């Protein structure tokens, strides 16, 4: 049965499925006003909260840390609660607060997210837009134990010069990569999606290595990046109906004597692998359990088979059509494309058939197992609701 989570009073802007086999199925959600909620998906109730001062842009899970980027220009590292306890006694709606561990100021002017990777036990590396210029990136390192340990390793790193040198000017004419739209980490590589449609894979070892370049989405901007585990590729979506597929060839070239400040191109090929799907303006893309799930600006979420050929399901929310006149100048305030409620976040939860619930209650145990028998698509809407829908299909084509 599909269900809806309601607690946010404004648009839900970010969702994250907390991936930990030991915990009950958990979702983390953030909204326009900066509220973060930790949901127990079995009881469908929020158990923890945190409030920022600006819209939540993105979440990332790193071990037991929740990394939340907010429009108040701050990246916060919060500790995932060790137990999702139920508050006894009624009425008591006050939720306990998540523990804040670390705070870093970041540029979130253009809604780009950030990416944090672990360097060693206590040291972490942050990839984000430059504080002043969203077309360039900064790389920081910090020690979680020391609040003053933040150190900028690369400042305002611009990749345009390098990339433009590799591109055939007769086919692609661009004077900038544009702002960085998305960051994602997959198998040690940081992928950056740009406004120009380029997706670039980077690795920081000795020097910054460009390990992958793709123009699959050029010239349309990259709207979302996701990891397609079944495909073994990173997938990018854009305003058109193409999805870029990205697989780097690791260690194609080796370089010696490289300084840590150098930018090295490991693979100068401009890749352009893509797949077309019958939907455009894909603001959110997910790949899970041999399914491809794309949410469009139109408010429609479509579930495809892994090849993106066959439409298996479509999820949408209708909205009222009578326009209201909410300003003194006579202009109705609803945007034109308003037959459906706007999608503002999306995440998917894969099946987990071998789950062994660690709980004493038989009812919870059964719900836990039943939950993981389905593939779930959770969509955050502009109306503040998070709708969870099963998207389980039999006899799917595998990648």
């Amino acid at each position, binding site marked *: 049965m*599909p269900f809806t*989570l309601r607690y946010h009073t404004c648009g839900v802007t970010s969702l994250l499925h907390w991936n930990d086999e030991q915990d009950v199925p958990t979702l983390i959600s953030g909204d326009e006003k900066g509220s973060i909620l930790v949901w127990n998906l079995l009881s469908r109730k929020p158990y923890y909260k945190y409030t920022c001062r*600006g819209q939540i842009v993105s979440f990332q899970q790193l071990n037991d840390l929740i990394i939340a980027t907010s429009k108040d220009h701050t990246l916060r590292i919060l500790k995932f609660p060790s137990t999702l306890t139920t508050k006894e006694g*009624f009425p008591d709606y006050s939720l306990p607060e998540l523990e804040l561990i670390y705070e870093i100021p970041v540029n979130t002017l253009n809604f780009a997210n950030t990416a944090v990777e672990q360097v060693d036990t206590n040291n972490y590396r942050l990839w984000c837009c430059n504080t002043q210029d969203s077309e360039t990136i900064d790389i920081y390192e910090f020690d979680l134990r020391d609040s003053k340990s933040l150190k900028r390793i690369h400042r305002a790193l611009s990749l345009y010069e390098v990339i433009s040198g590799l591109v055939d000017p007769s086919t692609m004419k661009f004077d900038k990569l544009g702002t960085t739209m998305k960051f994602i980490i997959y198998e040690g590589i940081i992928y950056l999606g740009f406004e120009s449609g380029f997706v670039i894979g980077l690795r920081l070892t000795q020097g910054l290595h460009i390990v992958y370049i793709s123009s699959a989405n050029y010239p349309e901007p990259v709207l979302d990046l996701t990891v397609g585990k079944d495909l073994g590729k990173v997938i990018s979506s854009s305003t058109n109906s193409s999805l870029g597929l990205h697989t780097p060839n690791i260690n194609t070239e080796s370089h010696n004597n490289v300084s840590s400040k150098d930018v090295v191109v490991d693979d100068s090929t401009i890749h352009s692998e893509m797949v077309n799907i019958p939907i455009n303006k894909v603001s959110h893309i997910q790949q899970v359990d041999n399914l491809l799930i794309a949410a469009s600006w139109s408010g429609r979420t479509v579930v495809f088979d892994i090849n993106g050929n066959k439409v298996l399901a479509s999820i949408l929310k209708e*909205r009222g059509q*009578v*326009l209201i*006149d909410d300003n003194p*100048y006579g202009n109705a305030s609803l945007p034109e494309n308003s037959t459906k409620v706007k999608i503002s976040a999306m995440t998917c939860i894969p099946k987990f058939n071998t789950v062994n619930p660690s709980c004493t209650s038989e009812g919870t145990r059964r719900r836990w197992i039943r939950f993981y028998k389905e593939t779930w698509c959770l969509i955050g809407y502009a109306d503040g609701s998070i709708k969870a829908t099963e998207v389980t299909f039999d006899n799917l084509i595998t990648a």
Partner: protein
Amino acid sequence: MFTQGQHVRSEHAGTKDEAFGKIKPICVRLSQVTFRKDELLILQDPQLKQLLQDLIQNLDILITKHKSLSGRFGDYVFVPISAMLKTCKSLPDPIATLVFEILARIIDVSWSLPATVDRNTFSQLLSLSTFLISTDLENVNLPNKPDEFKIASIRLLRVLYSTAAFKEWDANMLPAIAHSITILLTLLENSNMSIQLESSKTLRLLYRVINDGEMLSNVVPGNVSTFAKILSRPGLTTHVKVASDVLSTMSELLCMVYGDSSLETFIKTSTGNTAVEVKNPGKHRTTKWLNATSIQLKRALEPTFSKLTKRNNEKLNGELFEACVLLLNKCHNSLYGCREVILKTALTVARDNVFALERFKNDIAAFMRDNNIQVETNFEEINQYNIVNNALRILDTDQLEEYQISKTVAYGIYDSLKTHLLSLDKTENINLIKVTSSEVNYLVTSGSLNNSEVSIIPKISSTAYENVTNILLQLGSKMSASSIQEQIIEFLSIESDVLKNSNEALWIASTLLTGYKNTDISDFLAHDSDPISCQYDIIEMANERVSILSNQTELNELQRTNLTMNLFAMKQMIILMGKDFKDEMLDYIYNVIECFASDDENTRFISGNILQYLANEFYQGAMLNLFQDNVNYIIDGISVRLDNCLFHRAYMVLRVVIKVSGYDLVERLNDILEKLFWMLGYYHGYDDLCTVLLNLFIEISYKIQYTFLSKSSGQSIEIKTWNQDSFKPWGMSNIEQVLNVLDQEKTAADDYGSIAEVEPPEQTAEEFFKERFEKDSDDEDEDEEDAVSENNSSVNNGEAKDEMKWESPISRDAYMLLLRFWTYADRLLTHSSRSVRNKCLDLLLLLCPMLSTQQAVFLPNVAKVWDIVVRSAISEDLAQVGRSYELLNSLVLHTDSFLMKRVLDMWKLFSARDTMVSKMLSPISKSTRVHTTNTLQLQAYLRCSKLLITCMNQFGLQLPDHITIEMCKCLQSLPKDNNSCSPTQIESKHVTNILLLLNLRSQ
């Protein structure tokens, strides 16, 4: 000298003599009659009867004083009697009766002790007595004899049986004994109740005295057949007392004849055949005899017992049970052939005494198995229930399983229910979604319900329902964990389409599990796996089915029964889960609440019970808390229903939920509200839907009003008036008023913040235009502005984007929601349904003051709605007209002079068309006041005049004088006694002057 004792004895002897002295002359006189040679002379003697009666009387006196007298006394008294008997061939009944009485007394007092009478004499006496009672062996005439005769006969026989001489009966007496038995049987068969009782008791006495199974075996067939005949008479012709007594007589006889101990019977089983053999046979009672008679006996007993059980009399049942237990105890082996009949009867009539059958567990188990005993389709067959129920009470878990009884019984009930439910009507659909939220409201507010049980299976009596339930509970309580688990899984795996087939299997499974859980037996079976998962299997399946059924708009009888059965199964499981259910609430609470909003009484009742239970168990009985704590789950249920366009019941639940929750809930319901708006957009053709949605909007509007206006500020909406009556300062009559005016001006000037509020709206609008143009050019830089304000963290995201100053105490989001209500109500004002239109007017009226708190947004919307409201005021529907005037009044009141031009147009329209105004201004009514008994009409008039007063107050001198005069004329035509809109409410002195002038003129 006499000692005390001697004195008593001599006194005693004296009395004896005295008694004898009285009897002697009677005997002498009797002898004078009876010693005559002619029978006629004897019998026709007028003194005979009297003498016999005197004799009885005196004998009685004697007997009360002396327990026994000498044999010779008896001989003496007997002499005149014997003389009569010798002469007379037969005695008339009255004389015979008296003779029996005398004989009985003599025997009792003189010949009952040993050696008081010799054997031959006694034998003759016995023969004589039976002969006197009935001359023929067939007792043909006996039934027709008078009752006194019969009673005396029985008494005589009883006295004879009680003598010492009778105890030493021999073969010579057998014919007489046999005859006496036939006499008693005849009397038993053909007399009234008291005689029957006496006969039965006497027979019992006889058996006891004879105390010889071998001898009695000769009379068994005849006796039993008579007993059976009496016991199985149709109807209730045999009295309970008689039947009970006869039963015990019969059982005593059977025990004597068939007693295991005397016959030493044993049961021999070889190659599957079972046979009874007599180890200690008598002359008559051999194995052959036993086999032959027990077949006959069974034939006699089966219908008899069956008949008796059907009488369903408590006393009789008790006797029957005693008789059966006696037979089982004493003749267990001998009556092997009748054992099933006896067991069946015992189980049928047993009550709390059932444990007397404990010894026969194995027999019962075998009986249940061999006879495939189960509850049959005829639910009113009470005995069947008793057998199964009592058997289950007696039998052990092991036996139930070994003999496969649990399966047989459970499936028996299943088959019966299935057949029964097949007969339910599947054609007539009943709409279950009539909206009656009053009960839900009542439940939430009062939190109590009538808590008796209901039968969830239609068309069977409550007793039958109770019985089936008890059997299942009993069966469940006796099953082992593994077998109940197996049984439940079997039941749950029965394919059953909830819409087409009956769902009895689930109900049975749930009741079995309840029975199981309610006993401590599970403690003893710790090695078995706990069937805890079964309760989840059951409740999940029941819930799934309830969901399917609730998703139907109409249900037929079968489907309704399925709904109640599934709901009932849920209830049982919820109770079993106890505290554990708290975590399960999310999946079930909505369905239960929605069922409570059902139109079906049983459904409502069971769901009400569940809610009550949950409130008691988890919320100290507070239903409100139950709703509030689970509001998210309830809302989710509503949204699923709305997605399926199953709107009516969901609406009702939603309304209740909103009612019991705060505005913070409404804030989280954006998606539901969006869905409702969408539905209203698509399905506005359905009057019902529009009305209920508008009701819901009204509910939410009240919630917002309460949250932002009454609760926080503690004050109602302030009506902002910018218009200053130019006459205002002139009305002052003292210095205080002057000071007041000055104070007001001063305060207004001091309060910088409120200046915006007192400025005319036109000016505000201009400002807005100006600002708007400025902002438009800045739009592109918005992001940069954001960047600049990076450090200004206190700036709210929403506020930063604001184009206008937000003045309303209502939050922007809530205001926008109200505005959407307004827009929808505006659209629906032209709806074809009268009730929808009126509801819209109500909603607009409620929204008007609230929306007026943000004038800049409000005014364009007022402008939009104005014309339609004016038009709806020109109608024949008085209710609508009244509401329209009220709304127009509110619009004028809350918009300052914004509507000036429109009001003038409205006035023109009202004067020209057939309206309240034109009627009041017409020449006919000009001179007369409005007289109406129609409340609606009067109300409409009053609201109309209220509107006019508001207009005059609001616009003052801005209104042309001729219009003001006409308006005042309208006011004049109102009934004088109505204070609600008296001219004193008019604030403008100018208007008051006009009114006074008009009044003067008319006077």
